[in-house]
Protein backbone atom coordinates (compact mmCIF):
# COMPACT_ATOMS: atom_id res chain seq x y z
CA UNK A 1 0.00 0.00 0.00
CA UNK A 2 2.71 2.39 1.05
CA UNK A 3 4.77 1.49 -2.02
CA UNK A 4 1.75 2.27 -4.16
CA UNK A 5 1.42 5.63 -2.48
CA UNK A 6 5.08 6.36 -3.05
CA UNK A 7 4.69 5.44 -6.70
CA UNK A 8 1.67 7.66 -7.09
CA UNK A 9 2.98 10.64 -5.15
CA UNK A 10 5.52 11.96 -7.68
CA UNK A 11 2.91 11.66 -10.44
CA UNK A 12 0.32 13.45 -8.36
CA UNK A 13 2.81 16.15 -7.40
CA UNK A 14 3.86 16.65 -11.01
CA UNK A 15 0.20 16.78 -12.05
CA UNK A 16 -0.74 19.30 -9.40
CA UNK A 17 2.29 21.42 -10.33
CA UNK A 18 1.26 21.33 -13.99
CA UNK A 19 -2.30 22.27 -13.01
CA UNK A 20 -0.96 25.12 -10.88
CA UNK A 21 1.20 26.32 -13.77
CA UNK A 22 -1.73 26.14 -16.17
CA UNK A 23 -3.92 28.08 -13.75
CA UNK A 24 -1.30 30.84 -13.38
CA UNK A 25 -1.42 33.23 -16.33
CA UNK A 26 1.94 33.56 -18.07
CA UNK A 27 1.63 37.34 -18.11
CA UNK A 28 -0.30 39.38 -15.60
CA UNK A 29 -0.43 43.17 -15.32
CA UNK A 30 -1.83 44.47 -12.04
CA UNK A 31 -2.59 48.17 -12.09
CA UNK A 32 0.49 49.01 -14.18
CA UNK A 33 1.33 52.66 -14.72
CA UNK A 34 4.35 53.82 -16.75
CA UNK A 35 5.44 57.45 -16.96
CA UNK A 36 8.44 59.14 -18.55
CA UNK A 37 8.94 62.32 -16.56
CA UNK A 38 5.58 64.07 -16.62
CA UNK A 39 4.34 62.11 -19.60
CA UNK A 40 2.03 59.26 -18.62
CA UNK A 41 2.12 56.47 -21.22
CA UNK A 42 0.34 53.60 -19.47
CA UNK A 43 -2.41 54.10 -16.91
CA UNK A 44 -3.79 51.39 -14.67
CA UNK A 45 -3.36 48.47 -17.08
CA UNK A 46 -4.86 45.19 -15.88
CA UNK A 47 -4.31 42.34 -18.32
CA UNK A 48 -3.94 38.62 -17.89
CA UNK A 49 -2.62 36.38 -20.70
CA UNK A 50 -2.82 32.60 -20.27
CA UNK A 51 -0.28 30.15 -21.68
CA UNK A 52 -0.55 29.28 -25.35
CA UNK A 53 -2.63 32.32 -26.31
CA UNK A 54 -1.69 34.71 -29.12
CA UNK A 55 -2.67 38.27 -28.31
CA UNK A 56 -2.60 41.18 -30.74
CA UNK A 57 -2.07 44.57 -29.11
CA UNK A 58 -3.50 47.25 -31.37
CA UNK A 59 -3.77 51.01 -31.10
CA UNK A 60 -2.63 54.19 -32.77
CA UNK A 61 1.00 55.37 -32.74
CA UNK A 62 2.13 56.68 -29.38
CA UNK A 63 -0.58 54.93 -27.37
CA UNK A 64 1.96 52.85 -25.41
CA UNK A 65 1.84 49.45 -27.16
CA UNK A 66 5.61 49.05 -27.43
CA UNK A 67 6.05 50.36 -23.88
CA UNK A 68 3.59 47.70 -22.72
CA UNK A 69 5.52 45.03 -24.63
CA UNK A 70 8.85 46.16 -23.14
CA UNK A 71 7.31 46.26 -19.66
CA UNK A 72 6.48 42.53 -19.97
CA UNK A 73 10.17 41.73 -20.35
CA UNK A 74 11.22 44.41 -17.81
CA UNK A 75 13.13 46.47 -20.37
CA UNK A 76 10.93 49.24 -18.98
CA UNK A 77 9.95 49.13 -15.32
CA UNK A 78 6.45 50.07 -14.16
CA UNK A 79 6.23 53.38 -12.31
CA UNK A 80 3.40 51.84 -10.28
CA UNK A 81 1.78 48.39 -10.11
CA UNK A 82 3.17 44.97 -10.97
CA UNK A 83 4.00 43.30 -14.28
CA UNK A 84 4.23 39.57 -13.53
CA UNK A 85 5.74 36.92 -15.78
CA UNK A 86 4.85 33.40 -14.68
CA UNK A 87 3.85 34.81 -11.29
CA UNK A 88 7.18 36.61 -10.78
CA UNK A 89 7.86 40.33 -10.77
CA UNK A 90 10.90 40.71 -13.04
CA UNK A 91 11.44 44.35 -12.03
CA UNK A 92 12.51 43.27 -8.52
CA UNK A 93 14.99 40.59 -9.70
CA UNK A 94 18.77 40.83 -9.67
CA UNK A 95 20.78 40.53 -12.91
CA UNK A 96 21.42 36.78 -12.57
CA UNK A 97 17.75 35.86 -12.00
CA UNK A 98 16.62 38.26 -14.70
CA UNK A 99 18.99 36.61 -17.20
CA UNK A 100 17.57 33.18 -16.31
CA UNK A 101 14.05 34.47 -16.97
CA UNK A 102 14.88 36.39 -20.14
CA UNK A 103 16.09 33.32 -21.99
CA UNK A 104 12.46 32.17 -21.79
CA UNK A 105 11.52 35.09 -24.08
CA UNK A 106 12.01 35.77 -27.75
CA UNK A 107 11.68 39.37 -28.92
CA UNK A 108 11.33 40.48 -32.53
CA UNK A 109 12.07 44.19 -32.58
CA UNK A 110 10.44 46.66 -34.94
CA UNK A 111 13.57 47.05 -37.11
CA UNK A 112 14.86 43.59 -36.14
CA UNK A 113 17.68 45.17 -34.03
CA UNK A 114 20.32 42.92 -35.59
CA UNK A 115 23.88 43.58 -34.46
CA UNK A 116 25.53 45.57 -37.29
CA UNK A 117 29.01 44.36 -36.48
CA UNK A 118 28.07 40.67 -36.82
CA UNK A 119 27.10 38.52 -39.79
CA UNK A 120 23.64 36.98 -40.06
CA UNK A 121 25.02 33.65 -38.82
CA UNK A 122 26.67 35.28 -35.81
CA UNK A 123 23.47 37.18 -35.04
CA UNK A 124 21.31 34.05 -35.05
CA UNK A 125 23.92 32.07 -33.11
CA UNK A 126 24.35 34.82 -30.50
CA UNK A 127 21.84 33.51 -27.90
CA UNK A 128 23.22 29.98 -28.28
CA UNK A 129 26.80 31.13 -27.75
CA UNK A 130 25.76 33.13 -24.70
CA UNK A 131 23.59 30.55 -22.96
CA UNK A 132 24.33 27.05 -24.28
CA UNK A 133 27.55 25.08 -24.30
CA UNK A 134 27.45 23.56 -27.75
CA UNK A 135 30.01 22.42 -30.29
CA UNK A 136 30.54 24.79 -33.22
CA UNK A 137 29.06 22.13 -35.55
CA UNK A 138 25.82 21.95 -33.50
CA UNK A 139 25.55 25.75 -33.43
CA UNK A 140 25.96 25.94 -37.21
CA UNK A 141 23.35 23.21 -37.75
CA UNK A 142 20.82 24.93 -35.50
CA UNK A 143 21.43 28.30 -37.15
CA UNK A 144 20.84 26.81 -40.60
CA UNK A 145 17.69 25.00 -39.36
CA UNK A 146 16.23 28.23 -37.98
CA UNK A 147 17.09 30.19 -41.11
CA UNK A 148 15.44 27.48 -43.22
CA UNK A 149 12.39 27.64 -40.95
CA UNK A 150 11.98 31.34 -41.76
CA UNK A 151 12.60 30.68 -45.45
CA UNK A 152 16.12 32.03 -45.81
CA UNK A 153 18.84 30.22 -47.79
CA UNK A 154 22.19 29.12 -46.34
CA UNK A 155 23.94 31.80 -48.42
CA UNK A 156 22.73 34.61 -46.12
CA UNK A 157 24.79 33.28 -43.20
CA UNK A 158 27.90 35.25 -44.10
CA UNK A 159 26.08 38.47 -45.05
CA UNK A 160 26.00 41.57 -42.86
CA UNK A 161 22.56 42.92 -41.80
CA UNK A 162 23.14 46.06 -43.93
CA UNK A 163 23.14 43.87 -47.06
CA UNK A 164 19.63 42.52 -46.38
CA UNK A 165 16.19 43.83 -47.34
CA UNK A 166 13.67 44.84 -44.64
CA UNK A 167 11.76 41.55 -44.92
CA UNK A 168 14.95 39.49 -44.73
CA UNK A 169 16.10 41.41 -41.66
CA UNK A 170 12.77 40.71 -39.97
CA UNK A 171 13.11 37.01 -40.79
CA UNK A 172 16.67 36.90 -39.44
CA UNK A 173 15.38 38.65 -36.30
CA UNK A 174 12.67 36.02 -36.02
CA UNK A 175 15.19 33.18 -36.46
CA UNK A 176 17.35 34.72 -33.71
CA UNK A 177 14.35 35.14 -31.40
CA UNK A 178 13.29 31.53 -31.91
CA UNK A 179 16.67 29.86 -31.59
CA UNK A 180 16.39 29.20 -27.84
CA UNK A 181 12.81 27.89 -28.31
CA UNK A 182 11.23 30.50 -26.03
CA UNK A 183 8.00 30.08 -24.07
CA UNK A 184 6.91 33.62 -24.89
CA UNK A 185 7.36 35.41 -28.21
CA UNK A 186 7.00 39.19 -28.32
CA UNK A 187 6.62 40.83 -31.73
CA UNK A 188 6.94 44.60 -32.06
CA UNK A 189 5.17 45.69 -35.25
CA UNK A 190 6.42 42.70 -37.25
CA UNK A 191 4.88 43.79 -40.56
CA UNK A 192 5.49 47.55 -40.41
CA UNK A 193 7.35 48.85 -43.46
CA UNK A 194 6.92 45.64 -45.46
CA UNK A 195 5.01 45.12 -48.69
CA UNK A 196 1.68 43.21 -48.44
CA UNK A 197 3.22 39.96 -49.67
CA UNK A 198 6.12 40.08 -47.24
CA UNK A 199 3.66 41.08 -44.47
CA UNK A 200 1.69 37.93 -45.17
CA UNK A 201 4.90 35.87 -45.17
CA UNK A 202 5.68 37.24 -41.69
CA UNK A 203 2.12 36.47 -40.54
CA UNK A 204 2.53 32.90 -41.76
CA UNK A 205 5.86 32.65 -39.97
CA UNK A 206 4.23 33.83 -36.73
CA UNK A 207 1.59 31.13 -37.13
CA UNK A 208 4.23 28.54 -38.00
CA UNK A 209 6.31 29.50 -34.96
CA UNK A 210 3.23 29.04 -32.82
CA UNK A 211 2.50 25.61 -34.30
CA UNK A 212 6.09 24.37 -34.16
CA UNK A 213 7.08 25.67 -30.76
CA UNK A 214 3.75 25.99 -28.87
CA UNK A 215 4.58 29.46 -27.61
CA UNK A 216 2.50 32.20 -26.04
CA UNK A 217 2.72 35.27 -28.27
CA UNK A 218 2.07 38.97 -27.94
CA UNK A 219 2.01 40.85 -31.24
CA UNK A 220 2.04 44.64 -31.27
CA UNK A 221 0.62 45.80 -34.58
CA UNK A 222 -1.18 48.53 -36.52
CA UNK A 223 -2.05 46.04 -39.18
CA UNK A 224 -5.58 44.67 -38.80
CA UNK A 225 -4.84 41.85 -41.28
CA UNK A 226 -2.09 40.64 -38.93
CA UNK A 227 -4.33 41.01 -35.88
CA UNK A 228 -7.17 39.06 -37.46
CA UNK A 229 -4.94 36.39 -38.95
CA UNK A 230 -2.61 35.49 -36.10
CA UNK A 231 -4.44 36.41 -32.88
CA UNK A 232 -6.84 34.52 -30.62
CA UNK A 233 -7.50 37.73 -28.76
CA UNK A 234 -7.20 41.42 -29.57
CA UNK A 235 -6.53 44.15 -27.03
CA UNK A 236 -6.83 47.78 -28.07
CA UNK A 237 -5.13 50.48 -26.02
CA UNK A 238 -5.86 54.18 -26.36
CA UNK A 239 -3.50 57.13 -25.75
CA UNK A 240 -3.72 58.44 -22.17
CA UNK A 241 -3.94 62.15 -23.13
CA UNK A 242 -7.12 61.42 -25.12
CA UNK A 243 -8.82 59.58 -22.27
CA UNK A 244 -11.24 60.94 -19.70
CA UNK A 245 -10.20 60.83 -16.04
CA UNK A 246 -11.93 57.56 -15.14
CA UNK A 247 -11.81 55.87 -18.53
CA UNK A 248 -9.91 52.61 -18.98
CA UNK A 249 -6.93 52.71 -21.34
CA UNK A 250 -7.91 49.28 -22.67
CA UNK A 251 -10.94 50.00 -24.82
CA UNK A 252 -11.38 46.54 -26.37
CA UNK A 253 -10.40 43.08 -25.16
CA UNK A 254 -11.89 40.14 -26.99
CA UNK A 255 -11.60 37.71 -29.91
CA UNK A 256 -11.02 39.17 -33.40
CA UNK A 257 -14.48 37.97 -34.48
CA UNK A 258 -16.10 40.48 -32.09
CA UNK A 259 -14.23 43.52 -33.40
CA UNK A 260 -16.72 44.35 -36.15
CA UNK A 261 -19.72 44.12 -33.82
CA UNK A 262 -18.17 46.18 -31.05
CA UNK A 263 -19.88 49.49 -30.60
CA UNK A 264 -17.10 51.98 -29.93
CA UNK A 265 -16.31 54.79 -32.34
CA UNK A 266 -12.60 54.74 -31.44
CA UNK A 267 -12.22 51.06 -32.35
CA UNK A 268 -14.29 51.44 -35.51
CA UNK A 269 -12.19 54.41 -36.65
CA UNK A 270 -8.98 52.47 -36.04
CA UNK A 271 -10.18 49.34 -37.85
CA UNK A 272 -11.47 51.32 -40.84
CA UNK A 273 -8.49 53.67 -40.86
CA UNK A 274 -10.57 56.85 -40.48
CA UNK A 275 -8.98 60.05 -39.23
CA UNK A 276 -12.24 61.20 -37.58
CA UNK A 277 -11.75 63.96 -35.03
CA UNK A 278 -7.98 64.05 -35.80
CA UNK A 279 -8.91 65.67 -39.10
CA UNK A 280 -11.05 68.21 -37.24
CA UNK A 281 -8.14 68.94 -34.91
CA UNK A 282 -5.83 69.45 -37.89
CA UNK A 283 -8.35 71.80 -39.50
CA UNK A 284 -8.76 73.71 -36.27
CA UNK A 285 -4.97 74.05 -36.08
CA UNK A 286 -4.96 75.28 -39.65
CA UNK A 287 -7.62 77.89 -38.93
CA UNK A 288 -5.67 79.11 -35.90
CA UNK A 289 -2.47 79.46 -37.89
CA UNK A 290 -4.32 81.33 -40.63
CA UNK A 291 -5.70 83.71 -38.05
Amino acid at each position, binding site marked *: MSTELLDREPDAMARSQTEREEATPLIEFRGVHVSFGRQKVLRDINISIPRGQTVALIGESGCGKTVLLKTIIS*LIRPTEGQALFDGQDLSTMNDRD*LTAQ*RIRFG*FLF*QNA*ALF*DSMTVGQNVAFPLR*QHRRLQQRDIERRVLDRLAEVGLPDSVVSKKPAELSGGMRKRVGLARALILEPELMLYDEPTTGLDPIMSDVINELILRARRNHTVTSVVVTHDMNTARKVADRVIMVYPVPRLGENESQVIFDGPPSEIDDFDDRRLTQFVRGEAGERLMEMRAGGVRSEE
Partner: protein
Amino acid sequence: MSSTSPTSEPSLLSRVLRALSDWVADWGAAAIESITSIGRMALFALSTISWLFGRLPRRETLIPNFYQVGVLSLPVVALTGTFIGMVLAVQSYFQFRQLGLETRLGAVINMSLVRELGPVLAATMLAGRVGSSMAAELGTMRVTEQIDALSSMGSNPIHYLVVPRFLACLLLIPTLTVMADFMGILGGLFFSVDVLGIDFHHYIYNSKLFVGTFDVIVGVIKSFFFGAAIALVSCYRGFNCLPGAEGVGRAATAAFVYSFVLILVLDLFLGILLDSVYYTLWPEGARLF
Protein backbone atom coordinates in the same frame (compact mmCIF):
# COMPACT_ATOMS: atom_id res chain seq x y z
CA MET B 1 -18.86 98.84 -21.96
CA SER B 2 -15.83 96.92 -23.03
CA SER B 3 -14.21 97.07 -19.62
CA THR B 4 -11.66 94.36 -18.82
CA SER B 5 -12.15 92.52 -15.57
CA PRO B 6 -9.15 92.84 -13.21
CA THR B 7 -8.86 89.02 -12.89
CA SER B 8 -8.56 88.38 -16.62
CA GLU B 9 -5.15 90.06 -17.02
CA PRO B 10 -2.49 89.38 -14.38
CA SER B 11 -0.87 92.40 -12.81
CA LEU B 12 2.74 93.36 -13.44
CA LEU B 13 3.74 92.17 -9.98
CA SER B 14 2.17 88.74 -10.45
CA ARG B 15 3.82 88.41 -13.87
CA VAL B 16 7.22 89.29 -12.40
CA LEU B 17 6.65 86.83 -9.56
CA ARG B 18 5.66 84.11 -12.00
CA ALA B 19 8.71 84.75 -14.19
CA LEU B 20 10.90 84.68 -11.10
CA SER B 21 9.38 81.44 -9.84
CA ASP B 22 9.77 79.89 -13.32
CA TRP B 23 13.41 80.96 -13.35
CA VAL B 24 13.99 79.42 -9.90
CA ALA B 25 12.14 76.25 -10.98
CA ASP B 26 14.27 75.96 -14.15
CA TRP B 27 17.49 76.34 -12.20
CA GLY B 28 16.21 73.86 -9.60
CA ALA B 29 15.32 71.35 -12.32
CA ALA B 30 18.77 71.80 -13.90
CA ALA B 31 20.45 71.27 -10.51
CA ILE B 32 18.37 68.15 -9.80
CA GLU B 33 19.14 66.81 -13.28
CA SER B 34 22.88 67.38 -12.78
CA ILE B 35 22.90 65.64 -9.41
CA THR B 36 20.79 62.76 -10.75
CA SER B 37 23.13 62.44 -13.71
CA ILE B 38 26.18 62.24 -11.41
CA GLY B 39 24.36 59.58 -9.35
CA ARG B 40 23.49 57.57 -12.46
CA MET B 41 27.06 57.85 -13.71
CA ALA B 42 28.36 56.60 -10.33
CA LEU B 43 25.96 53.62 -10.44
CA PHE B 44 27.05 52.90 -14.01
CA ALA B 45 30.71 52.93 -12.94
CA LEU B 46 29.94 50.74 -9.92
CA SER B 47 28.08 48.25 -12.07
CA THR B 48 30.98 48.12 -14.57
CA ILE B 49 33.52 47.53 -11.80
CA SER B 50 31.35 44.87 -10.12
CA TRP B 51 31.08 42.98 -13.45
CA LEU B 52 34.85 43.28 -13.79
CA PHE B 53 35.32 41.30 -10.59
CA GLY B 54 32.41 38.95 -11.29
CA ARG B 55 33.06 37.44 -14.70
CA LEU B 56 35.55 38.51 -17.36
CA PRO B 57 34.23 39.03 -20.90
CA ARG B 58 34.94 36.47 -23.59
CA ARG B 59 38.00 36.67 -25.81
CA GLU B 60 35.93 37.43 -28.92
CA THR B 61 34.56 40.60 -27.33
CA LEU B 62 37.90 41.68 -25.83
CA ILE B 63 40.18 41.33 -28.85
CA PRO B 64 38.29 43.68 -31.24
CA ASN B 65 38.20 46.35 -28.54
CA PHE B 66 41.88 45.96 -27.72
CA TYR B 67 42.66 46.19 -31.43
CA GLN B 68 40.46 49.28 -31.83
CA VAL B 69 41.88 51.12 -28.80
CA GLY B 70 45.46 49.92 -28.89
CA VAL B 71 46.64 49.04 -32.37
CA LEU B 72 44.62 51.56 -34.36
CA SER B 73 45.56 54.42 -32.01
CA LEU B 74 49.27 53.72 -32.24
CA PRO B 75 50.10 55.84 -35.34
CA VAL B 76 48.20 58.92 -34.18
CA VAL B 77 49.64 58.75 -30.65
CA ALA B 78 53.19 58.25 -31.95
CA LEU B 79 52.84 61.15 -34.36
CA THR B 80 51.34 63.44 -31.71
CA GLY B 81 54.05 62.49 -29.21
CA THR B 82 56.85 63.20 -31.71
CA PHE B 83 55.49 66.62 -32.60
CA ILE B 84 54.88 67.57 -28.97
CA GLY B 85 58.55 66.83 -28.24
CA MET B 86 59.68 68.95 -31.18
CA VAL B 87 57.29 71.83 -30.38
CA LEU B 88 58.52 71.88 -26.79
CA ALA B 89 62.08 72.15 -28.06
CA VAL B 90 61.19 75.06 -30.36
CA GLN B 91 59.24 76.92 -27.68
CA SER B 92 61.76 76.47 -24.85
CA TYR B 93 64.96 76.96 -26.84
CA PHE B 94 64.83 80.76 -27.27
CA GLN B 95 63.93 81.37 -23.61
CA PHE B 96 66.69 79.08 -22.35
CA ARG B 97 69.25 80.41 -24.80
CA GLN B 98 68.83 83.94 -23.43
CA LEU B 99 69.76 82.55 -20.01
CA GLY B 100 72.54 80.41 -21.43
CA LEU B 101 70.81 77.27 -20.26
CA GLU B 102 70.08 75.61 -23.60
CA THR B 103 71.85 72.42 -22.55
CA ARG B 104 69.14 72.01 -19.88
CA LEU B 105 66.52 71.72 -22.61
CA GLY B 106 66.46 67.91 -22.31
CA ALA B 107 65.45 68.16 -18.65
CA VAL B 108 62.55 70.52 -19.39
CA ILE B 109 61.29 68.66 -22.45
CA ASN B 110 61.49 65.23 -20.90
CA MET B 111 60.09 66.25 -17.52
CA SER B 112 57.12 68.03 -19.17
CA LEU B 113 56.53 65.05 -21.41
CA VAL B 114 56.59 62.21 -18.90
CA ARG B 115 54.73 64.00 -16.09
CA GLU B 116 52.15 66.10 -17.91
CA LEU B 117 52.06 66.46 -21.66
CA GLY B 118 52.57 62.81 -22.58
CA PRO B 119 49.72 61.46 -20.43
CA VAL B 120 47.36 64.42 -20.91
CA LEU B 121 47.80 64.79 -24.67
CA ALA B 122 47.73 61.05 -25.31
CA ALA B 123 44.54 60.82 -23.24
CA THR B 124 43.05 63.82 -25.06
CA MET B 125 43.82 62.28 -28.43
CA LEU B 126 42.27 59.02 -27.32
CA ALA B 127 39.21 60.75 -25.87
CA GLY B 128 38.72 62.23 -29.34
CA ARG B 129 39.51 59.11 -31.32
CA VAL B 130 38.31 56.27 -29.10
CA GLY B 131 35.87 57.95 -26.69
CA SER B 132 33.76 59.67 -29.34
CA SER B 133 33.71 56.53 -31.46
CA MET B 134 32.58 54.43 -28.46
CA ALA B 135 29.82 56.90 -27.60
CA ALA B 136 28.64 57.04 -31.22
CA GLU B 137 28.71 53.25 -31.61
CA LEU B 138 26.87 52.56 -28.35
CA GLY B 139 24.51 55.47 -29.03
CA THR B 140 23.60 53.99 -32.40
CA MET B 141 23.07 50.63 -30.72
CA ARG B 142 20.76 52.31 -28.20
CA VAL B 143 18.80 54.17 -30.89
CA THR B 144 18.40 51.07 -33.08
CA GLU B 145 17.34 48.97 -30.06
CA GLN B 146 20.40 46.73 -30.28
CA ILE B 147 21.10 47.28 -26.56
CA ASP B 148 17.50 46.31 -25.76
CA ALA B 149 17.92 43.26 -28.00
CA LEU B 150 20.99 42.27 -26.01
CA SER B 151 19.05 42.56 -22.74
CA SER B 152 16.08 40.68 -24.16
CA MET B 153 18.40 37.76 -25.02
CA GLY B 154 19.52 37.48 -21.41
CA SER B 155 22.89 39.20 -21.80
CA ASN B 156 23.87 42.08 -19.60
CA PRO B 157 24.77 45.07 -21.83
CA ILE B 158 27.25 46.44 -19.29
CA HIS B 159 29.07 43.12 -19.14
CA TYR B 160 28.97 42.56 -22.88
CA LEU B 161 29.57 46.09 -24.18
CA VAL B 162 31.10 48.25 -21.45
CA VAL B 163 33.50 45.92 -19.61
CA PRO B 164 35.59 45.04 -22.73
CA ARG B 165 35.84 48.73 -23.67
CA PHE B 166 36.71 49.67 -20.09
CA LEU B 167 39.44 47.03 -19.93
CA ALA B 168 40.83 48.08 -23.31
CA CYS B 169 41.08 51.73 -22.22
CA LEU B 170 42.34 50.92 -18.72
CA LEU B 171 45.14 48.65 -19.91
CA LEU B 172 46.10 50.16 -23.25
CA ILE B 173 45.94 53.91 -22.63
CA PRO B 174 48.90 53.67 -20.19
CA THR B 175 50.79 51.66 -22.82
CA LEU B 176 50.00 54.30 -25.43
CA THR B 177 51.09 56.99 -22.99
CA VAL B 178 54.50 55.32 -22.63
CA MET B 179 54.64 55.26 -26.43
CA ALA B 180 53.75 58.98 -26.61
CA ASP B 181 56.44 59.75 -23.98
CA PHE B 182 59.03 57.75 -25.88
CA MET B 183 58.26 59.35 -29.23
CA GLY B 184 58.14 62.81 -27.62
CA ILE B 185 61.55 62.26 -26.06
CA LEU B 186 62.92 61.15 -29.43
CA GLY B 187 61.30 64.11 -31.21
CA GLY B 188 62.69 66.56 -28.66
CA LEU B 189 66.13 64.99 -28.84
CA PHE B 190 66.18 65.03 -32.63
CA PHE B 191 65.09 68.67 -32.89
CA SER B 192 67.36 69.90 -30.09
CA VAL B 193 70.50 68.07 -31.22
CA ASP B 194 70.13 67.89 -35.01
CA VAL B 195 68.27 71.14 -35.74
CA LEU B 196 69.13 73.48 -32.86
CA GLY B 197 72.67 72.14 -32.47
CA ILE B 198 72.64 71.45 -28.71
CA ASP B 199 75.39 69.16 -27.48
CA PHE B 200 74.13 65.56 -27.32
CA HIS B 201 76.16 64.64 -24.22
CA HIS B 202 74.92 67.59 -22.14
CA TYR B 203 71.35 67.12 -23.35
CA ILE B 204 71.32 63.49 -22.16
CA TYR B 205 73.27 64.25 -18.97
CA ASN B 206 70.80 66.94 -17.84
CA SER B 207 67.83 64.77 -18.77
CA LYS B 208 69.15 61.98 -16.57
CA LEU B 209 69.90 64.41 -13.76
CA PHE B 210 66.45 65.95 -13.56
CA VAL B 211 64.03 63.24 -14.74
CA GLY B 212 63.67 60.23 -12.46
CA THR B 213 61.75 56.99 -12.67
CA PHE B 214 59.16 58.38 -10.25
CA ASP B 215 58.30 61.09 -12.79
CA VAL B 216 57.63 58.42 -15.41
CA ILE B 217 55.58 56.39 -12.88
CA VAL B 218 53.47 59.48 -12.02
CA GLY B 219 52.61 59.87 -15.71
CA VAL B 220 51.70 56.22 -16.08
CA ILE B 221 49.59 56.18 -12.89
CA LYS B 222 47.69 59.20 -14.17
CA SER B 223 47.06 57.51 -17.49
CA PHE B 224 45.31 54.55 -15.79
CA PHE B 225 42.80 57.03 -14.32
CA PHE B 226 42.47 58.85 -17.64
CA GLY B 227 41.79 55.55 -19.43
CA ALA B 228 39.12 54.54 -16.91
CA ALA B 229 37.53 58.01 -17.10
CA ILE B 230 37.42 58.03 -20.92
CA ALA B 231 35.83 54.57 -21.06
CA LEU B 232 33.22 55.24 -18.38
CA VAL B 233 32.21 58.69 -19.61
CA SER B 234 32.03 57.62 -23.25
CA CYS B 235 30.11 54.41 -22.61
CA TYR B 236 27.73 56.23 -20.26
CA ARG B 237 27.00 58.90 -22.86
CA GLY B 238 26.43 56.23 -25.50
CA PHE B 239 24.11 54.23 -23.24
CA ASN B 240 22.08 57.33 -22.41
CA CYS B 241 21.95 58.66 -25.95
CA LEU B 242 18.88 60.63 -27.01
CA PRO B 243 16.91 59.35 -30.01
CA GLY B 244 17.88 60.09 -33.60
CA ALA B 245 21.00 61.13 -35.47
CA GLU B 246 21.14 64.34 -33.42
CA GLY B 247 21.18 62.31 -30.20
CA VAL B 248 24.09 60.18 -31.44
CA GLY B 249 26.01 63.28 -32.53
CA ARG B 250 25.46 64.93 -29.18
CA ALA B 251 26.53 61.80 -27.32
CA ALA B 252 29.79 61.67 -29.30
CA THR B 253 30.52 65.35 -28.68
CA ALA B 254 29.57 65.15 -25.00
CA ALA B 255 31.79 62.07 -24.57
CA PHE B 256 34.82 64.04 -25.77
CA VAL B 257 34.01 67.26 -23.88
CA TYR B 258 33.27 65.53 -20.55
CA SER B 259 36.27 63.21 -20.92
CA PHE B 260 38.56 66.16 -21.63
CA VAL B 261 37.32 68.15 -18.64
CA LEU B 262 37.62 65.08 -16.43
CA ILE B 263 41.17 64.43 -17.69
CA LEU B 264 42.22 67.96 -16.69
CA VAL B 265 40.50 67.77 -13.28
CA LEU B 266 42.01 64.35 -12.58
CA ASP B 267 45.42 65.62 -13.74
CA LEU B 268 45.33 68.42 -11.20
CA PHE B 269 44.21 66.31 -8.26
CA LEU B 270 46.42 63.33 -9.10
CA GLY B 271 49.39 65.69 -9.52
CA ILE B 272 48.80 67.12 -6.02
CA LEU B 273 48.16 63.69 -4.51
CA LEU B 274 51.14 61.95 -6.06
CA ASP B 275 53.50 64.81 -5.16
CA SER B 276 52.19 64.69 -1.59
CA VAL B 277 52.85 60.96 -1.48
CA TYR B 278 56.36 61.50 -2.85
CA TYR B 279 57.27 64.23 -0.38
CA THR B 280 55.74 62.27 2.53
CA LEU B 281 57.86 59.24 1.69
CA TRP B 282 60.98 61.23 0.79
CA PRO B 283 60.81 64.54 2.70
CA GLU B 284 64.33 65.54 1.66
CA GLY B 285 63.32 65.27 -1.94
CA ALA B 286 65.53 62.21 -2.36
CA ARG B 287 65.16 60.42 -5.64
CA LEU B 288 63.17 57.21 -5.71
CA PHE B 289 65.76 55.43 -7.84
